[in-house]
């Protein structure tokens, strides 16, 4: 369902990704690991077209990302639930409104939105902060809101960029278990993280290790 052929990305003269070829099937659980600056975020950004100039081909559910029209772009993005490395919460809207936005943009009914948003807030332990504004929350709390927003639309693919980066190991564990729940329901999950240690011994998945923009190792974790 996600296919990359020889994808390279340059920033100025510097290569951030070099000849990446990947094949990801529906329902896979993928870790993208590697040190800081390896190109993990860049790889995810290409998938949701926050970076739209790259070499090579990317296919998602048959859509060729180099040829996607601007009117189809929202359709592509609604397939994803994205946890951004920098959270990207709207500071002028409450936690509740930030999460509800995804469903409003998808044209859902308000009764459904209310039910659904409260549900994800409960399961991420953020229901008490529904009316709070993002900047009044701790980094870990903001991260949980970001995760809640990523899953609320029941996306077929979750892209999570360092979803546990600001969390202590217990909370990180909880978020990971939360994402694993979605994986069990059939959601494809891509997690970019330098903290491979946390991921080990959790679930069967594929680890793709990046370094300096290249895939240096791919292994199956059990």
């Amino acid at each position, binding site marked *: 369902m996600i296919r990359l052929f020889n994808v390279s990305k340059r920033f100025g003269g510097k290569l951030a990704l070099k000849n990446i070829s990947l094949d990801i099937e529906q329902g896979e659980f993928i870790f993208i690991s590697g040190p800081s600056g390896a190109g993990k975020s860049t790889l995810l950004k290409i998938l949701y077209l926050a970076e739209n100039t790259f070499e090579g081909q990317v296919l998602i559910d048959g859509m060729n990302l180099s040829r996607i029209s601007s009117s189809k772009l*929202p359709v*592509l*993005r609604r397939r994803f639930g*994205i946890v951004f490395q920098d959270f990207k919460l*709207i500071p*002028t809207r409450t936690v509740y409104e930030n999460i509800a936005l*995804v469903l409003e*943009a998808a044209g859902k009914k308000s009764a459904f939105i209310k039910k659904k948003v409260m549900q994800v807030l409960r399961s991420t332990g953020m229901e008490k902060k529904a009316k709070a504004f993002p900047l009044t929350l701790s980094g870990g709390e903001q991260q949980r809101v970001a995760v809640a927003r990523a899953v609320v639309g029941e996306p077929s693919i979750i892209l999570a960029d360092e979803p546990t980066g600001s969390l202590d190991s217990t909370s990180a564990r909880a978020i990971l278990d939360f994402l694993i729940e979605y994986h069990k329901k059939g959601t494809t999950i891509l997690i970019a993280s330098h903290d491979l240690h946390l991921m080990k011994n959790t679930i069967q998945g594929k680890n793709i290790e990046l370094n300096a923009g290249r895939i240096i190792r791919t292994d199956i974790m059990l």
Partner: protein
Amino acid sequence: MIHFLKRALADIHSNKFLNLITIITIALSILVVSVFLLFFENAGRVIESWNQGGRAMIYLKKEFNADMLPELKTKINSLGDIDEMVYISKAKALDTLKNSMASQTTFLKNLKENPLPDALEIKIRSYNNFQEVQTLAQNIKAIDIVDDIEYGQSWLGKFLKIFNLFKITGYAMCGFFFLMALFITANTVRLAFYSRMLEVEIMRLVGATETFIKAPFYIEGLIQGFLGGVLGLGALLITYLMVSSGITQSLASYVYFDLRFLSVKMVISIIFSSTFLGWFGCYLSLKQIFK
């Protein structure tokens, strides 16, 4: 839909000052425009009454006799857009005169011969344009059997010229204020948009369509335009109520003067235009931002 309205209201709330300035600017523009409209509507009516609703009197030469009437009527009708035409024979004119001057009938009774001419009273349909009336009158006067034609007063023509000049200035002012209001609205939307760039970017990333993103801005523009229109007309109405009774009282004794507020139709179209103005300002600035 309700969602967009909520968002628009929330934005107006968070940008109170900017929105207030915009609404006041629109209101002022609408006020200026509607003052002109009010003035023209009333002045037009007054002038119309002075012009006796486009009436003119055609006096005929002595040689005229009633047999020539049908031919004359067709001739005059062919010259212009005549609403109605009434033949007043000299005998009838004399009767009317006698009736209206009952006390001096002895003088009239002593008349051996009727000194009055035969006449035709006509009503011209399109009498707004004085020039037209003038040309028509000249053409009628050129008919052989016509002795003279009397219409309006010559000062009315001069007055109308000034009035029309004034009208053109009025339109120019209206246009100027319209553009100013448009510019201010477009600018408010632009500022609102830039202040929400981050929000817009995030909305795009979570899959919102451009329509979804833009709709609240449009609704904001519509609300600004509508409130501006209502406020401007409200101000006009208050001023009108305060001033009108005074004017009517002091002038009614001199001239026919029937001061009226703008018609309902006019009020609706002004509010509609100002709402459209809000929308259009928004359209222009989003078009520029998204190009």
